[in-house]
């Protein structure tokens, strides 16, 4: 079931006995991404927007060319509404700080879900505390989906924003973005989507989703670390004050006041991360080459295989939605009373890289009544060989742990 060749990924090619199953934390990088970054520095490096000389123009073109490609990949026609940030965390903080402080007031309500990563939970919790708004958490159904009936009740007339993840990083649950957006819009609230785990795995189609803002991280979708962004509706961005001040984002600076540059510059203070943007553009070209529908089909097949193989291990409990169709390539589980950290240490010895812990989702872990789980997550370079290595290593770990019990 080879999909994206392992030979395209230098780290994986160099370590043939490594079974990398932690792509929900960060993906490996294809050579084309590394080459694009190197090529940028070797041929076009200068500070964009600054110089009248041709090289600065080349850097500017590389930067905005990358923006156009990434916007197109995510289904946004208006590329200037894509704001580059360090990633989803900074994007959600931008929304909560810049838009939130301006639009959410005492007595208003802010709604998130029990599935949220801390990066889409804490900014809203803290915003609500700061302005005196109500912070409400929509609970889950027993199979790990957002309880839409409860959400309809929670989203009351005083609700200003519903912040939710496209895909849960801890359980893999794929949320019904359109329906959540519909519920928010029905009472005039905005809907902000944390797409950190969505953009790498699913065709996003920003314009069609009608979501007010969609945040993503480049490093989870084959791009480099330190680049990501948020796409938002133009009207929302234009009605929002900038949240960082400095170079690039200004228009005229007078002694007593300043006017702001046009989008996207208004929200991009300081020298931008051009290498990151260029690297991420190469990553989305690579993903386009595979085709996002094929990426999804590969993950459904591999996740289905993994769920089937894991179910055969006695004492193993999988969390989250039952079938592969309603989750992305994420499988969270526990095995008997083996602590997830003990399990991940034992798997690591066999070259199996999995995440163990609370997955930056402590509110969710409390609801599941577990302190931690083990999480295996798949991406384009994973195959059934990786799943087989995981299963074999789990069997060994179990035998070792219960040898004297």
């Amino acid at each position: 079931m080879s999909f994206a060749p392992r030979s395209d990924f230098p780290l994986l090619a160099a370590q043939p006995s490594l079974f990398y199953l932690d792509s929900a934390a960060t993906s490996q990088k294809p050579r084309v991404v590394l080459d694009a970054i190197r090529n940028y520095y070797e041929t076009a490096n200068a500070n964009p927007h600054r110089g009248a000389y041709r090289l600065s123009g080349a850097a500017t073109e590389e930067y905005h060319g990358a923006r156009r490609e990434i916007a197109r990949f995510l289904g946004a026609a208006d590329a200037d509404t894509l704001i580059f940030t360090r990633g989803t965390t900074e994007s959600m903080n931008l929304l909560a700080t810049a838009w939130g402080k301006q639009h959410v007031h005492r007595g208003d309500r802010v709604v998130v879900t029990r599935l949220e990563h801390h990066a889409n939970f804490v900014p809203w919790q803290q915003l609500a505390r700061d302005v005196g708004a109500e912070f409400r958490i929509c609970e889950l159904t027993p199979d790990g989906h957002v309880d839409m009936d409860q959400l309809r009740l929670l989203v009351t007339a005083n609700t200003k924003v519903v912040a939710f993840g496209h895909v849960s990083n801890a359980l893999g649950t794929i949320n019904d973005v359109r329906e959540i957006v519909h519920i928010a819009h029905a009472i005039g609230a905005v809907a902000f989507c944390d797409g950190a785990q969505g953009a790498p795995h699913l065709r996003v189609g920003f314009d069609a989703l009608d979501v007010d803002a969609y945040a993503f991280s480049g490093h989870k979708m084959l791009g480099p670390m330190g680049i990501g962004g948020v796409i938002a509706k133009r009207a929302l961005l234009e009605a929002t004050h900038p949240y960082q001040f400095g170079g690039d984002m200004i228009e005229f600076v007078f002694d007593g006041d300043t006017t702001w540059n046009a989008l996207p510059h208004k929200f991009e203070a300081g020298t931008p991360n051009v290498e990151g943007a260029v690297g991420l553009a190469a990553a989305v070209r690579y993903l386009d080459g595979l085709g996002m529908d094929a990426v999804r089909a590969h993950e459904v097949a591999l996740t289905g295989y993994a769920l089937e193989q894991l179910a055969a291990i006695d004492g193993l409990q999988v969390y989250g939605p039952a079938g592969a169709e309603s989750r992305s390539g994420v499988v969270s589980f526990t095995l008997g009373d083996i602590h997830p950290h003990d399990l991940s240490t034992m798997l690591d010895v066999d070259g199996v890289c999995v995440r163990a812990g609370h997955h930056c989702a402590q509110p969710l872990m409390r609801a599941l009544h577990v302190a931690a789980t083990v999480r295996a997550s798949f991406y384009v370079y994973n195959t059934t060989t990786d799943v087989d290595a995981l299963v074999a290593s789990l069997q060994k770990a179990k035998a070792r742990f219960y040898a004297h019990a």
Partner: protein
Amino acid sequence: MSTSADRSAGLAALYQERILDHYRHPRHKGVLERATGVHGEKNPLCGDDITVSVLQRDGVVIDARYTGIGCSIMQAAASMLMELVRGRTREEIDLLSRRFDEMLASGEPEEALGELGALAGVAGFPARHKCAKLPWRALLGAIEHRNNG
């Protein structure tokens, strides 16, 4: 630990019978009602959570108990540690704590540490040093608590 055989041997040492036995059948688990000091420590990354209560008299730890949840390394270390420190002075415990740190650095079992010497295998797993040290931090905090009080 470079070869896969080395790594496997390291794992066998880490999850040896004595450690798993302390994990499954912890000694000295509980809360001392007449504790002279109580201290809790957490590792938010993995959810390990331990509270140690100690009873000291004339500079000697008469009894020590712990409650908590966590991985086998943390639980076994706690169980063995409570056994080790009973009847010891503060100075002796400080010395043993340094010996334990040295053992995690060297990987050589330390006789003075009694059963805790079984945790020498943790040395080869730097990501797990925190687990083995957490009970020490809770214990030293509980002893300190009494001194501060």
